[in-house]
């Protein structure tokens, strides 16, 4: 589904943050991405959802070479990918409910068709009673859960989650992990970037470790 071949990335004229990344991500697979702070996890995730172009190498996403992609084709591709940003990126002028419903709105769906989905998902992540408040008054963990809910809501084919449990307590982290697993069980490939060893230990999943710009994979 996703294939990287000898991918290298540097920001501007800086050193190479990632070098010679060669791996692939299978449909329906589940993997953790880990590595020390500043290793390049977020950078790799940005490559995966077309927010960065590699300095060298080949990336193919859903079978399409990203170097050959036209701007006009990207939105359709992006809609098949859900992203949980490390810094949440909620829109402050929309309520939690509206933030989570945003991907549906962007698709032009009628509200009646997704309202129940959004409400159920918010209940599951424990934001049932925070639906109508705006992100600035949410606690750190609540924001994080809203960001997760937004990424999941359309059941994308590929889910990227950047440090999705950094601000929540361990029981809640387990609950969220169950959500990711459920999504995976339904066919979504999931990649979770995390430092949380406790979280990774709960699951016998593939681990991708970035260190000094190189990737090692432990199946």
């Amino acid at each position, binding site marked *: 589904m996703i294939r990287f071949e000898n991918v290298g990335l540097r920001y501007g004229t800086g050193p190479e943050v990632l070098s010679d990344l060669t791996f692939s991500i299978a449909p329906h697979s589940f993997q953790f991405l880990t590595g020390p702070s500043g290793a390049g996890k977020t950078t790799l995730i940005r490559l995966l959802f077309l927010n960065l172009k590699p300095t060298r190498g080949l990336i193919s996403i859903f079978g399409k070479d990203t170097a050959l992609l036209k701007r006009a084709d990207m939105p359709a591709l992006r809609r098949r990918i859900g992203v949980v940003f490390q810094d949440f990126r*909620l829109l402050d002028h929309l309520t939690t409910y509206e933030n989570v419903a945003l991907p549906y709105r962007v698709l032009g769906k009628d509200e009646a068709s997704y309202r129940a989905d959004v409400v*159920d998902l918010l209940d599951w992540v424990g934001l049932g009673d925070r639906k109508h408040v705006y992100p600035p008054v949410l606690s750190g963990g609540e924001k994080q859960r809203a960001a997760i809910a937004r990424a999941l809501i359309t059941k994308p084919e590929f889910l990227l989650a950047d440090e999705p449990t950094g601000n929540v307590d361990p029981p809640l982290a387990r609950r969220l992990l169950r959500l990711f697993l459920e999504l995976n069980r339904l066919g979504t490939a999931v990649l979770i970037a995390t430092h949380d060893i406790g979280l990774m230990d709960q699951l016998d999943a593939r681990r991708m470790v970035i260190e000094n710009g190189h990737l090692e994979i432990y199946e």
Partner: protein
Amino acid sequence: MKTPIPRPKRRATASKARPGGDTTLASPIVPPQAIAGRTLVLVIAIMTFLAGFTIAVVSVIDRAADAWASDIGREVTIEIRPLDGVAIDAEVEKAVALAQEFPGVGGARAITEAETQRLLEPWLGPDTDLSALPVPRLVIVSIDDAASFGVKALSDAVGRDIRGGSVDDHALWVDRLSAMASSMVFAGVGLMSLMLVALILSVVFATRAAMAGNRDVIEVLHFCGAEDRFIAGQFQRRFLLFGIEGGAIGGALALLAMGIAAWAIGGSAGRPGADQIEAMFGRFELPGTAYALVLSLVVAVALLTALTSRLAVRRSLSALD
């Protein structure tokens, strides 16, 4: 508890029971932007007001200038000097008859001796007996149809047929006044261009400033897979509204201010000075074109605002990939 991910059945019931029936999608995707948006509307309103006001003033001046030039251009005077052995009254009558026959002339009228006396009174004192004096007589010829009237032909005819007669077409005055009027119109149009440039700059910059706070929104929408068209459309719609709001407020105020000015000047009809102003500018009635111009100004401002926001979105978007 089951994770909420696949629920074909529950969804069906849910859409009946509407568990989230109290939730509505009230908020627009583009933030209402308390301060930046209000500032944009205000700047647009102020600039539209000033530009609209200038347009109104310039069109009043323009119309007044037209009126001056044509009022004066619509009269020529035949002067008949008394010559020895010529019956001046007969010559005056001949001149009136000659002029009335001329193509393009609406009418000709001799100035009576009483009128001449009134005109000369400041110089000669009230009790002068003009009949004793060799005072020239005047015939005022008013022109109906400037196109078919030829001042040269009249001049020739008068020189040929009327003894002691000559034509004064006020050419000097017409030249001077129309030059002055066109100078004023020129200055007005210059001022208007300045205003329009200022208007465009302010609107473009204020719109871009208001857009600057929206980079996050554009980014998030983009990453949610929204088409560029969709994002640009959202912003364009909102900024079109800002533009219409600001433009309408400013345009309405400009027309209102003009109305108040007209009323204030009209109301002071008895006051000294009012006559002069009225003589110069006409009755301060706004020509219909002024309304049309202000209206199209408002439309142009709204479109400009929308277009600027669209371009700003496009620029942000192309910086993203």
